[in-house]
């Protein structure tokens, strides 16, 4: 995409102004501005649509209508909200560290937009192609933790600090499984470039690396602080968490950053595991959009269905469950990669089969060891009832 726009600019400048010769860096800069403008505005529009879609879908999941007043099907609701947020009063607490307090929201938003620079929207439609872009994505996403702890520390609020500590603990824990879950893919592709990974995905990697896909998806949910890992904003315990003292457009930036991060996570997941822009007949951008929307729908569906983890459960899951799963995945994949070397026909299918047979059973095994599956074998006599209601006698008799 870069060269395409660059050439068009070069050509058009030549047509208009013949005498002046433009330096290369001016054209490069202009091309960058155009691409950044398109991507940032696309993501911002996506965030507005996502906020509306999430409220609307959550409504439907709970048998409500959701917002449907403002515009067709209520699609202008989030626009109205954005305008409202812009005109709200901006309050900074007296004891706050003003500089860090003001910088923190930007630290959350900017990295999210940077992620989109390495995402291929089509087979030749990308802003930059770094040869280590998978690593780049992992590195950039962890800046959000810095932003959250900056915000909490600067606002001098103990509740915010609790929230930020939880967030950072979660980020540190989940960074490792997320990073290691990509190793399997990198072994298969023998490249760290997202572009290469996309080209290599004749079959989506979710079918070839099921364990890695599960771990990566859960890990990215934790990194963007979404349900079931949204304990940084557990309303009943921490009010709004690290955003407690923010108001106006600074709060709006946090909100924007969170939803943009959700889009970014869905995009990265669909690029690495669902084949990205690969698809028959239609252009790549269409298939990428379809996949991103599907992943976002699943994220919202999870939010409507599953309860929130406790902090110790979250860390247990990361260190005792997902971390081991990634190690198993790496071992199985690396052995499979050695056996079926590059260039062999049906290589991906064999590696996938090996993963399903040898790695996937470990998901069940490890979660059995974590004792998360006592759903079926519930001891009915020890079942607890809501606080404030002693178990009535007739229920006790019924259980027996």
């Amino acid at each position: 995409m870069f060269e395409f726009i660059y050439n068009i600019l070069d050509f058009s400048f030549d047509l208009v102004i013949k005498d002046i010769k433009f330096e290369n860096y001016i054209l490069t800069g202009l091309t960058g501005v155009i691409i950044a403008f398109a991507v940032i505005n696309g993501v911002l529009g996506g965030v507005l649509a996502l906020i509306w879609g999430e409220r609307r879908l959550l409504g439907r999941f709970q048998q409500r209508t959701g917002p449907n007043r403002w515009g067709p099907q209520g699609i202008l609701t989030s626009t109205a909200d954005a305008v409202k947020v812009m005109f709200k009063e901006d309050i900074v607490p007296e004891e706050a560290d003003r500089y860090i307090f003001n910088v923190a929201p930007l630290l959350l938003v900017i990295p999210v937009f940077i992620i989109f620079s390495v995402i291929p929207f089509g087979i030749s439609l990308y802003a930059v192609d770094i040869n280590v872009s998978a690593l780049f994505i992992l590195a950039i996403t962890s800046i959000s933790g810095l932003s959250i702890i900056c915000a909490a520390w600067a606002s001098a609020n103990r509740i915010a600090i609790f929230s930020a500590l939880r967030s950072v603990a979660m980020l540190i824990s989940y960074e490792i499984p997320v990073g290691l879950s990509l190793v399997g893919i990198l072994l298969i592709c023998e490249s760290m470039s997202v572009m290469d990974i996309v080209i290599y995905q004749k079959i989506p990697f979710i079918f070839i690396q099921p364990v890695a896909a599960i771990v990566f998806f859960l890990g990215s949910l934790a990194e963007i602080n979404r349900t079931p890992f949204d304990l940084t904003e557990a309303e009943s315990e921490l009010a709004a968490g690290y955003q407690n003292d923010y108001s106006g457009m600074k709060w709006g930036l946090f909100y924007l950053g969170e939803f943009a991060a959700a889009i970014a996570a869905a995009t990265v997941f669909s690029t690495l595991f669902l084949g990205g822009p690969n698809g028959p007949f239609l252009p790549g951008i269409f298939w990428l959009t379809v996949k991103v929307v599907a992943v976002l729908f699943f994220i919202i569906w999870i939010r409507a269905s599953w309860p929130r983890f406790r902090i110790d459960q979250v860390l247990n899951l990361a260190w005792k469950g997902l971390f081991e799963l990634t190690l198993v995945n790496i071992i199985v994949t690396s052995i499979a990669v050695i056996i079926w070397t590059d260039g062999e026909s049906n290589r991906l299918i064999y590696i996938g089969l090996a993963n399903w047979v040898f790695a996937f059973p470990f998901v069940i095994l490890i979660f059995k060891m974590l004792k998360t599956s006592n759903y079926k074998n519930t001891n009915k006599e020890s079942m607890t009832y809501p606080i404030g209601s002693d178990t009535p006698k007739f229920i006790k008799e019924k259980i027996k």
Partner: protein
Amino acid sequence: MIGFGLIKGLSVTFRNLFSPVFTVQYPDKRVGVFGLAKSKNKSVFELLKEEPKQILYAILGLAKVKVKNDQFPRFRGNEFVWYDDRCTACASCAKYCPLGIIEIVTHASGENLQAGENYAIDKFDIDTGRCMFCGLCVEACPYDALHMGTDFERGNYHRAKLVLDKETLISQDKNPSSWFRPQFEEKEYNPWASNLSDYKEAGRHEKPSDEKIKQNWVNKRKFNG
């Protein structure tokens, strides 16, 4: 089986996604093409022929339909229904009113002494701004001239406009509530479906005939025995 609980939770919410919503939209509701056609008692093709613009609005989700939420017929609304032909100006309602908000002024009419029209009514004001809708005036009326109403969308910026005077009471749509008026319930009268402008239909419920009373008495014993 591991993960079964998670999948079960997801399936519950997924079923909810396609079930009808409980939200009651008021005062208007957004409808689609089929909802719009249904509200106008037409088929979609008829609507397409007559009002293609409306169909476009409905597809965009901009079509609105006015909603009138039906209460129970005994609902006591923020208005009164008064039949001046039935009223004898006895002022029972004014005497029973605990807040004293009904004002009645009469003069001797000098005609139809037998028909209960000794007095002609000059003024019949009910200040609904101070009314607490206890309904004692309706209970007190010996000739069923005064009824509770069913309208409740009478919000106003001026207290003076909340006073129902004689002219408004006569000219307004008459949708009496069936509160303390069993004759309406016997006829299964629905205040939101029909306009009861004829005072003769709003009358007292008739005393059941002797045979009917007898039959009722017998039926009661039968059931208990």
